[in-house]
């Protein structure tokens, strides 16, 4: 049997069911590894060791009982999991990577978390993130940068960098992330993982500390498409607490192995192979596409003509929504308060000290874009161009079933490489932002390594609510490749 901490979800569940190991053994193995490696990688902001072991013990009782009675078990019973620290877990501190929320202990579970708990999952802890999920490297966390398990001098990507590094380093078999402009797909790509960004409205956002409400989605960082499907099936669907979830659009994903790649039309957008994309990244994507062609897919070039406008549109709409959402952090109801003479000065002092540089920068951009005299030129125009970007995707999906493209312009970059220049950092997301603006789902898949041993990735995008198709193709690809099974050797030996 391989080491417990290198199991994927499917094999962990199998082992738990058969009694090959207990949930307590599995959970303890992860907790031990977290204790050993977290000081190096800075992945977890909070480790819920006691409650995890307690939940694991309870799961073991149900598991052993069911072996006698053959009773039906909750789908994730006994499975350890990590949660990005922008989703609330009752009784566990939530920071959103910010000083302004220091000390805040939510009294309720995010719906996505609640559904995992109802399915029997064991929560290991909360993972590091760029402050309020604003960033592409986790360098914007108030609690320090996360290190990429493949090269500790490099970033894991962001903002779900903690969740990505946790799964890549074997500190959790799977983790929840959130994707507003690429925050699941980009770190998955940089850490060699399968990363699913769900369709806007597929998984409830209740309990997700809001950043950009028309963009925020809950996603999954996993070792395989199959693992992502297992979690999606538990979390997806209508939630009365989030009006954008749709009851009619959450069929269970079935990965039956009879993959549907044969005859599938895959479009490759020429706007994603531009100057500035590392040659090895483009080559890796081309090779992965050739594999899909080998499985019977029909590949053709397409155009998404407004791709270059996604970055400016995003950096108006997301900060504008953030400036409204983050108004609630004012020193009154939770977290930090910096006292001053009157209410307004208390607000300003608290926010000035509590928010980090990138959050302040985006709040300033958003406030400006919404302010009197500039609203039409910035926010109004951005919303119109957003329509054009969505239309690009609608037109593309009239011709093809899926889009295949790079997830990022480069492999994992060095810590500090872009911190002096915000725009340079924003450019890391050029290939993930368009799908976020259109609200469509996306999947990052491990697709090899560059000459430095850093993971390469393929990004697949599909029409609204096409997660099943994305995961089917991902699963089929992972039947003929083994990139997704690779783990960073240095850490494995640790």
């Amino acid at each position, binding site marked *: 049997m391989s080491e417990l901490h290198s199991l994927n979800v499917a094999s962990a569940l199998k082992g738990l069911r058969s009694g090959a190991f207990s949930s307590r053994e599995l959970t303890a193995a992860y907790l031990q590894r977290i204790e050993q490696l977290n000081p190096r990688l800075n992945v977890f902001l909070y480790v819920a060791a006691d409650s995890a072991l307690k939940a694991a013990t309870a799961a073991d009782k149900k598991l052993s009982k069911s072996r006698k009675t053959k009773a039906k078990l909750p789908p994730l019973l006994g499975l350890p999991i990590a949660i990005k620290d922008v989703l609330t877990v009752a009784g566990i501190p939530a920071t959103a990577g910010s000083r302004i929320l220091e000390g805040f202990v939510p009294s309720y579970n995010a719906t996505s978390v609640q559904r995992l708990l109802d399915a029997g999952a064991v929560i290991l802890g909360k993972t590091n993130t760029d402050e309020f999920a604003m960033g592409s490297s986790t360098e914007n966390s108030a609690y320090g940068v996360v290190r990429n398990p493949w090269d500790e001098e490099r970033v894991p990507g962001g903002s779900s960098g903690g969740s990505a590094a946790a799964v890549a380093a074997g500190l959790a078999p799977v983790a929840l992330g959130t994707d507003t402009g690429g925050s699941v797909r980009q770190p998955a790509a940089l850490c060699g993982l399968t990363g699913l960004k769900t369709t806007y409205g597929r998984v409830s956002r209740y309990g997700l500390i809001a950043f950009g409400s028309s963009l925020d989605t809950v996603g999954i960082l996993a070792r395989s498409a199959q693992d992502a499907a297992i979690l999606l099936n538990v979390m997806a669907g209508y939630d009365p607490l989030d009006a954008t979830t749709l009851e009619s659009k959450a069929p269970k994903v079935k990965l039956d192995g009879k993959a549907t790649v044969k005859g599938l039309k895959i479009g490759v957008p020429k706007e994603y192979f531009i100057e500035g994309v590392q040659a090895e990244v483009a080559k890796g994507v081309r090779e992965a596409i050739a594999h899909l062609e080998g499985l019977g897919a029909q590949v053709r070039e397409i155009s998404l003509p407004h791709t270059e406008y996604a970055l400016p549109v995003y950096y*108006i709409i997301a900060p504008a929504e953030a400036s409204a959402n983050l108004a609630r952090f004012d020193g009154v109801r939770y977290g930090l308060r910096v006292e001053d003479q009157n209410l307004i000065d208390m607000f300003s002092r608290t926010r000035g000290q509590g928010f980090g540089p990138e959050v*302040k920068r985006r709040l300033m951009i958003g406030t400006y874009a919404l302010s009197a005299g500039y609203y039409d030129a910035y926010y*109004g125009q951005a919303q119109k161009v957003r329509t054009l970007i969505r239309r690009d995707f609608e037109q593309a999906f009239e011709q093809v079933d899926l889009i295949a493209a790079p997830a990022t312009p480069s492999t994992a970059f060095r810590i500090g490489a872009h911190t002096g220049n915000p725009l340079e950092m924003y450019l890391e997301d050029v290939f993930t932002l368009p799908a976020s603006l259109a609200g469509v789902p996306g999947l990052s898949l491990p697709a090899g390594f560059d000459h430095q041993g850093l993971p390469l990735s393929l990004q697949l995008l599909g029409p609204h609510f096409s997660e099943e198709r994305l995961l089917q193709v991902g699963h089929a690809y992972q039947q003929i490749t083994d990139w997704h099974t690779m783990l960073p050797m240095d850490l494995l030996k640790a």
Partner: protein
Amino acid sequence: MPLSREDVEHIALLARLHLTAEEKERYREQLSNILDHISKLQELDTSSVQPMSSVVVEQSRLREDVAGPAMPREDLLRNAPDAADGQFRVPPVLDTSP
């Protein structure tokens, strides 16, 4: 379009952000660069395009207007920096000096 220091101070006031002098200068420069990049959107003619005001592809459903259980008050007040008598306590809203 370069922002002035006064622009930055006005935005910071609207955003309720107390900034140091050094921050004001840094943001003046960085925001000017970012706005410069964003102004690329002005090159598109969007006179016949509708703004995208909703991401949801289907009509949202309305629920029955029935009150449900609320979160317990003590749970919510527990996280407050300052609370008394079942309420959040804040500094004076109005200037009380004579």
